[in-house]
């Protein structure tokens, strides 16, 4: 993925005379998952820098994508067996972002050609990939992945999510839901003319657990025995405390 981006950036840089360039700002550089974390909004805003007046004969497209860490997932399907619903078939999807939002100023298919979508993997359907021989019906499984994650707001397609003023200023608001996974989130802003990408700006937004959340998570994974003993100690102390307080009340 990174390599692809680097390549496309190189290609873009090699194009003669980049007439339009993105200048970007973010409302936050990072997202901290605290104990009371309940989702977060990121305002992505910017302007288009030009050396000459804006072209009038073609339409401007602004696409903002925010992708969480890529991971492999297994999608399972239930079927009725012996009268009850049981997981039967499963398909491994090699690469799927844990979070993916695409915001555009107009419907995606109007501002991005299909060929460009294949190359850049912008649309949600193309951001998900199963490497290796595609099994029959595996499309149903990736559709299901998108559907389930759209319901929990982990995948979002915001067709008029980008507000553009005077073909120069743009901004969009991406809402991150509460059930986020940690990692480096990548925000990409694409500028298109006639469906072709003319500029790309990439920036990282780290999302990480902080404070108590960080400490507990690390302890549970790196020092599992100590964490288990700590959980037990808390439980026994609470049980003993409850019984002590109860006997005080009784007297």
């Amino acid at each position, binding site marked *: 993925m990174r390599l692809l981006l680097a390549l496309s950036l190189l290609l873009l840089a090699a194009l003669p005379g980049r007439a339009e360039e993105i200048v970007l700002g973010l409302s936050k550089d990072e997202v901290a998952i605290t104990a009371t974390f309940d989702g977060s909004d990121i305002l992505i805003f910017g302007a288009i820098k030009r050396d000459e007046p804006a072209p009038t004969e073609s339409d401007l497209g602004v696409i903002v994508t925010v992708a969480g860490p890529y*991971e492999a997932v297994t999608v399972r399907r239930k079927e009725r067996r012996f009268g009850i619903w049981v997981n039967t078939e499963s398909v491994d999807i090699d690469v799927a972002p844990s979070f993916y939002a695409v915001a555009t100023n107009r419907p995606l298919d109007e501002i991005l050609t299909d060929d460009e979508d294949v190359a850049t993997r912008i649309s949600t359907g193309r951001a998900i990939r199963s490497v290796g021989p595609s099994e029959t019906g595996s499309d149903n499984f990736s559709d299901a992945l998108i559907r389930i994650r759209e319901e929990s707001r982990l995948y979002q397609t915001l067709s008029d999510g980008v507000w553009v003023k005077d073909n120069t200023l743009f901004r969009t608001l991406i809402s991150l839901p509460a059930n986020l996974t940690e990692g480096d989130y990548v925000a990409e802003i694409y500028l298109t003319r006639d469906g072709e990408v003319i500029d790309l700006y990439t920036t990282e937004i780290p999302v990480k657990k902080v404070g108590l959340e960080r400490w507990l998570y690390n302890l549970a994974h790196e020092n599992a025995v100590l964490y288990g003993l700590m*959980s037990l100690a808390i439980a026994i102390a609470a049980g003993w405390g409850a019984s002590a307080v109860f006997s005080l009340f009784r007297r």
Partner: protein
Amino acid sequence: MQIYLPIAEVSVNAFLLLGLGGIVGILSGMFGVGGGFLMTPLLFFIGIPPAVAVATEANQIVASSFSGVLAHFKRKTVDFRMGTVLLIGGLIGSALGIVIFNYLRSLGQVDLLVRLCYVVFLGIIGGLMFMESLRAIRKSNAGAPVPTRRRHNWVHNLPFKMKFRVSGLYISVIPPVLVGVAVGILAAIMGVGGGFIMVPAMIYLLGMPTKVVVGTSLFQIIFVTAFTTMLHATTNYTVDVVLAVLLLIGGVIGAQVGTRIGVRMKAEQLRILLAIMVLAVCGKLALDLLLEPSELYSIGSAGGH
């Protein structure tokens, strides 16, 4: 107030968890049950991943059993010898249970296994309890004496006999070890203490006197659930201590309230209420398995092969 659970990686309402802990605490105080068999399905319903729910509930049961056993220590109603024999079985069972749990987790069938176990056991226990308390109510209305249970059965003809002074028994160690193994497996798979299986088994199968049954089972449950917690924490990293603490706070307060309510009610009424509740939870879980789900697909993390 939303709170983000660091291990479950979901955000839930803290008051909802305190409330759930409280309600289950009240019920466990009223009926003298651990409440694990109610809490774990409730955690499924509010969206806690089943693996986390089962592991965390084991940790919470350590607390409630410890609180309960202290009272029995004072009254000297714990048969340590019997408890230790049950415990040896329990530890073996718990280790077996974790192996089964992790194997099915890798197959993506752990939800099914946990739910099936719940439907089967809650169905059997709830059904038996319901019929038994109906009969008891009818009998107490008619004024007939309760029949005394058989004192000698096949259990008394097995080898490796041992004296259990507190229980006043001289029986083979095989049945208590087997009861322990069964309860240990259930504790690991279902995230329950297993008291609801062990107590009837101790009374009807082993023939232990009722007054030492609860204390002894609590004594065994503490160690088996503590061991289960450690196994889950070190192999699956699924014990969520924040979740456990929130459930604990609600649970210990609820248990005190429940005990007071329980004292004022008749035993038969209590038992029939508990039976109805057990059957209701069982019914809900059974429907989930029998009816076509609205979403046939589910997402799991890869790598479990």
